[in-house]
């Protein structure tokens, strides 16, 4: 309810306060005619307040214009600029870099995952399921995760339709159907966008504990996360998960900010900011979606037993031992037998363990 009220309030505020100049373009650069005024003055001095042979054409004058000199406009949404020069750059960045390379980045991500799957296959539990479980994520944790996950997926799909639909989808389903899909995608994207911010805050709050980097993460990195052979020890979260968490938090925040600017264009003081926002939003989206693909893969198809932690919240003890041995040790106080382990530096005392296990369970 709070959320709806918040959104409604924002909406009302926007309606009341927002002038139509939402899309107004104003230069943030110093006046481009700074030099030219000097020339005008020079001419004035020589031939009076204006020249006697007709308003002469000064190439500099028009060159400035080409680069977005400000004028005084009659009216309308397009502001004072005669030529909004960065539009062309925006077009190139979007069409060439974002749509084209962004598409390839995503395709590559999928390709790599498939390749990995083919090579490595599903990471099985070496010891097989024990049937004995320990609690990994409480219900609130899982709720926060799935809340974010659903919104993320909705936004991803709708966003991708807007980004790549014309290239990928339209040739298949035709312009009309694609327009309907894209329109729905845009509306949906705009509607769920603000919820992403809620989900992001919630998620951050719920998961930030345990996601700070530790020395163990360095070792984990040095061992390549265990993917390349030797086992890498990890706590509640391994370095990959922590990285993913922080990617979500940081990139997600950027998405949230740029998204808000795009959703409420009057927040942006210039068209340029909007243009930059679209670009940044798209880059962030590609990064997040690519990473999310990996996250989804490893959480489902890629690793036996991983999904349990986000469904029931309880993971098999074997899974815990094999993938989060340090966490397992912390929670249970039992040392995991690991031939390759260099031995744990310290054995936590019982009080600490019980305290931690309590927090994870509550």
């Amino acid at each position, binding site marked *: 309810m709070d959320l709806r009220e918040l959104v409604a309030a924002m*909406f009302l505020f*926007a*309606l009341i306060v*927002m002038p*139509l100049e*939402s*899309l107004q373009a104003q230069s943030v650069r110093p006046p481009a005619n700074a030099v030219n005024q000097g*020339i*005008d003055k020079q*001419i*004035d001095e*020589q031939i009076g307040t204006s*020249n*006697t*042979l*007709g*308003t*002469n*054409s*000064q*190439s500099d*004058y028009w060159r400035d*214009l080409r680069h977005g000199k400000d*004028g*005084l*406009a*009659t*009216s*309308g*949404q*397009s*502001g004072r*600029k*005669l030529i*909004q*020069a960065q*539009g*062309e750059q*925006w*077009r190139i960045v*979007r069409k060439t870099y974002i749509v084209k390379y962004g598409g390839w980045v995503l395709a590559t991500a999928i390709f790599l995952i498939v390749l990995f799957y083919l090579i490595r296959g599903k990471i099985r539990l070496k010891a097989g399921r024990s049937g004995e479980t320990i609690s990994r994520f409480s219900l609130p944790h899982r709720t926060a995760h799935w809340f974010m996950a659903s919104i993320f997926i909705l936004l991803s799909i709708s966003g991708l339709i*807007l*980004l790549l*639909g*014309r290239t990928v989808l339209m040739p298949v389903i035709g*312009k*009309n159907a*694609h*327009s309907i899909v*894209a*329109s729905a995608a*845009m*509306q949906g994207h*705009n*509607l769920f966008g603000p919820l992403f911010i809620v989900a992001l805050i919630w998620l951050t709050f719920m998961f930030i504990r345990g996601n700070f980097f530790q020395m163990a993460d360095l070792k984990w990195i040095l061992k390549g996360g265990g993917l390349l052979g030797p086992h890498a020890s990890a706590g509640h979260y391994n370095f990959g998960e922590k990285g993913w968490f922080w990617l979500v938090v940081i990139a997600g925040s950027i998405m949230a900010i740029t998204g808000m600017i795009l*959703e*409420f264009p*009057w927040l942006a003081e210039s068209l340029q900011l*909007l243009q930059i926002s*679209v670009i940044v939003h798209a880059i962030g989206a590609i990064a997040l979606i690519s990473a999310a693909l990996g996250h989804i893969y490893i959480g489902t198809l890629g690793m036996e037993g991983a999904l349990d932690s986000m469904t029931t919240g309880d993971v098999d003890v074997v899974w815990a031992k094999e993938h989060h041995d340090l966490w397992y040790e912390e929670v249970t106080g039992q040392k995991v037998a690991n031939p390759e382990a260099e031995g744990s530096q310290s054995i936590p005392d019982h009080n600490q363990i019980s305290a931690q296990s309590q927090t994870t369970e509550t």
Partner: protein
Amino acid sequence: MARMKFLCDAERCIECNSCVTACKNEHEIPWGINRRRVVTLSDGKPGERSISVACMHCSDAPCMAVCPVDCFYQTANGVVLHDKDLCIGCGYCFFACPFGAPQYPQAGNFGSRGKMDKCTFCAGGPEDDHSAEEFKKYGRNRIAEGKLPICAEMCSTKALLAGDGNIVSNIYRERVVGRGFGSGAWGWGRAYIGEGRT
């Protein structure tokens, strides 16, 4: 086939805004939407010039390139038109357009801009010529009536020219030649300051 173009003669444009109101009148454009606007540069100072600007119907139109639903199309005359049925109001064409041509009926909250509207070179849209549907969505189709855009036809000083690019540029060339020194000669204002003036 003619290549339709707009040209605004800055030596003549006096910022009277007839192009703006003629357009509004002809196409029943609501308040807040300006398919054409006039920009004045160096306002109130020597060197002040005004230029009327609308969709310039670019050959390689940025709007067409960036539209996520590919709603734009270019006629054989080079006029860039769009299909409001396809338009989703995303605003990308506005980001890309150098001339600020795309206009939206709504303010843009929650991305709700509504269907984009812009200058059609008085050539209507994809609907049947002269149909009520076409008028409602795009305004009048003067090109199909064998006429040119109303803004140029009504320009108070004939500053705004519209039509076949060759003819338009010929008219402009004649004017520039007629004006001779001091008006329109590239670089002269810079190179020969102070010479030959009374």
